[in-house]
C-alpha cells in the first residue's frame, strides 16, 4: 500500500543565502511544513567572554562586529551604555554626528535587506541595484572612519574624528538621489507580481505572538505594534527629531518589507534635520585616561538598531574591564519566531520568512 511519511530536510548552514550560518531543519509533508527547528551558533565567536578581558575602550572594535551590516549602530549602543554607566556627557556636535552615521547605517542595512531578500527569492538583478546604492554609503563610512564595513568610529565620550569636508556634499547628494533610488526599486522590485505573490499573506505574525516572543524592531512594527525605542525611550538626542514610525497591518512578509522601505525614508528625514541643526564644537568629551565605573554599578541600555532592540547589559567590578557584558541581540530573539510563522506554509516560504525577519547571524550568535 502507499504510505507517506514526513521528510526532514536541512537548509544550511552552508547555503546560497547571505544570512550566514543558519541551519533550519524543516519537517515536511510533501511541500507543506509541519515543523521547523532552528539551529544557531555557527558564527559563535565568544565575544561576551572576550569582553571580560578587554578594557572598555578596547572592546569598541568588537562591538561593531555584532551587526556588521549596520556597524555604526551596535557601536553606538555600546559607547552609550558605557557612558551611561560612567556618567559621561557627550558634546552636542558629537551627538549629531552619531545620529547621522547611525541613520546612514540603518539605510545601508535596509538596502542590503531588500537586495538579499530578492536574491534569496531568485531575483539577482535587484541585489545589484541595492548594492550599487549601498556603495555610496560605504564610501561615506570610508571618509569618516577609514573602513567600509566595520566602522569602529564611535569613542567613549564622542566620536573618533570630525567629519571631513568631502562628507557633506556626499551625504547631501545621496539624500537628493534617494527618492529616485526608491522609485527605481518600486518599479523593478515592489511592483513585481511574482514577488508580491511570494510575500503577501506569507509568514503572518500576530501582534500577541510578536510581543510574547520578544520580537522587536521592524518585525514588531509590521505586526501593527507601535513600538520604536527612538520614540518611546529616546536615547542621545533622538527626541529632537521629527519622524514617523511606519506600521504594518497584517504582519506578513510583505508588511515586513514595506515597513523597512518606509523606514529608509524616515531615516533620510532625520539625517536632513541633523545636518541642518548640527552645531560647531568639540567632538569628544574629556574622559579619564583609564575608564572605570564604580564597583557594583550596572546598566541596561537599549537602542533601536536596524534589526530591533539591541541592548547592552554591563556590570562593573570597579576595574577598567567589564565584569560581565551581555548583549541582548535582536536577531537571536527574532529567529525564535520562525517556527511559528512557517507552520502550515510551503517549503519556499521558509526562505521568504528568514529573509524578511532580517537576521544577522553575527549578532545572533555573538
Amino acid at each position, binding site marked *: 500500500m502507499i504510505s507517506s511519511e514526513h521528510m526532514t530536510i536541512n537548509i544550511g548552514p552552508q547555503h546560497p543565502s547571505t544570512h550566514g550560518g543558519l541551519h533550519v531543519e524543516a519537517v515536511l509533508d510533501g511541500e507543506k511544513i509541519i515543523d521547523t527547528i532552528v539551529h544557531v551558533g555557527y*558564527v559563535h565567536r565568544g565575544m561576551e567572554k*572576550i569582553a571580560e578581558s578587554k578594557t572598555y575602550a578596547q572592546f569598541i572594535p568588537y562591538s561593531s562586529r555584532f551587526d556588521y551590516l549596520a556597524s555604526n549602530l551596535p557601536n553606538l549602543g555600546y559607547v552609550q551604555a558605557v557612558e551611561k554607566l560612567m556618567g559621561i556627557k557627550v558634546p552636542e556636535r558629537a551627538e549629531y554626528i552619531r545620529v547621522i552615521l547611525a541613520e546612514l547605517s540603518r539605510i545601508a542595512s535596509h538596502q542590503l535587506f531588500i537586495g538579499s531578500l530578492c536574491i534569496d527569492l531568485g531575483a539577482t538583478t535587484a541585489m545589484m541595484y541595492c*548594492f550599487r546604492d549601498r556603495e555610496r554609503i560605504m564610501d561615506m563610512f570610508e571618509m569618516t572612519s577609514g573602513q567600509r564595513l566595520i566602522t569602529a568610529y564611535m569613542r567613549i565620550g564622542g566620536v573618533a574624528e570630525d567629519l571631513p569636508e568631502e562628507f557633506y556634499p556626499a551625504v547631501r547628494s545621496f539624500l537628493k538621489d534617494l527618492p529616485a533610488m526608491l522609485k527605481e526599486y518600486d518599479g523593478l522590485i515592489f511592483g513585481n507580481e511574482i514577488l508580491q505573490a511570494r510575500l503577501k499573506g506569507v509568514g503572518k505574525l500576530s501582534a500577541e505572538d510578536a510581543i510574547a516572543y520578544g520580537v522587536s524592531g521592524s518585525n514588531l512594527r509590521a505586526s501593527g505594534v507601535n513600538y520604536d525605542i527612538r520614540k518611546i525611550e529616546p536615547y542621545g538626542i533622538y527626541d529632537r527629531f521629527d519622524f514617523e514610525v511606519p506600521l504594518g497591518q497584517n504582519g506578513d512578509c510583505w508588511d515586513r518589507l514595506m515597513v523597512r522601505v518606509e523606514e529608509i525614508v524616515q531615516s533620510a528625514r532625520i539625517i536632513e534635520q541633523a545636518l541642518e541643526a548640527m552645531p560647531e564644537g568639540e567632538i569628544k568629551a574629556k574622559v579619564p585616561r583609564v575608564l572605570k565605573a564604580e564597583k557594583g554599578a550596572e546598566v541596561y541600555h537599549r537602542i533601536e538598531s536596524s534589526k530591533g532592540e539591541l541592548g547592552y547589559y554591563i556590570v562593573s567590578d570597579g576595574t577598567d574591564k567589564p565584569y560581565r557584558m551581555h548583549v541582548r541581540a535582536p536577531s537571536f530573539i527574532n529567529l525564535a519566531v520562525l517556527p511559528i510563522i512557517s507552520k502550515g506554509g510551503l517549503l519556499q516560504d521558509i526562505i521568504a520568512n528568514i529573509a524578511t525577519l532580517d537576521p544577522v547571524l553575527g549578532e545572533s550568535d555573538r
Partner: protein
Amino acid sequence: MALEQDVEILEKNNILVSTLEKLWNWGRSYSFWPLNYGCGCCPIELLAASASRFDIARYGYEVFRAAPRQADLLLVAGPVSQKMKPILERVWAQMPEPKWVLAMGNCATSGGPFKDGYAVLPGCDTLFKVDVYVPGCPPRPEALFHGLLELKKKVGGKK
C-alpha cells in the same frame, strides 16, 4: 604544490607530462567556481565584490555554486566556530579534485580578533591546506581580487 611534485616524479621516471595538464590548469585558473560559503562579516565584502561596482565577473569568478560537488574554490570567509568545524570539513570533503582554498580575512587566516577566545579555531588551516591567505578585517574587495589573482598565478603556472 601537489601537482608540481607529481610532474617532477613523472619526469624523473622518464615520463613527460603533456601540455594538456598545463592547458587545463590555465583554463581552471581563469574560471574558478567558488562555493557559496560564508559565516560572519567577510562574506558581506565578498557579496560587495560580486556586485556591480567591484564586479568579480570581470575575472571570471562569478559562478558561485551552492553545491560543493560543483565548486572548485572554497573561499573560507569568516571565522570557523566550534559548531561550524564539522560542517566545513564535510563540505571540503565533498568538493571534488582539483580544489583550492582561499582564506579570506583575519579570522579564517589565524582566528583574527577572536583568537584568544574559546569559540573560534585559530585559522582554517588547522583543517586543510590553504593556498592563498588574504588578510584584512574585512579585506576590501580589491584585496580579495589580489588574492584571487595570486591564486590564478599559482594554479595557472605563471611566475
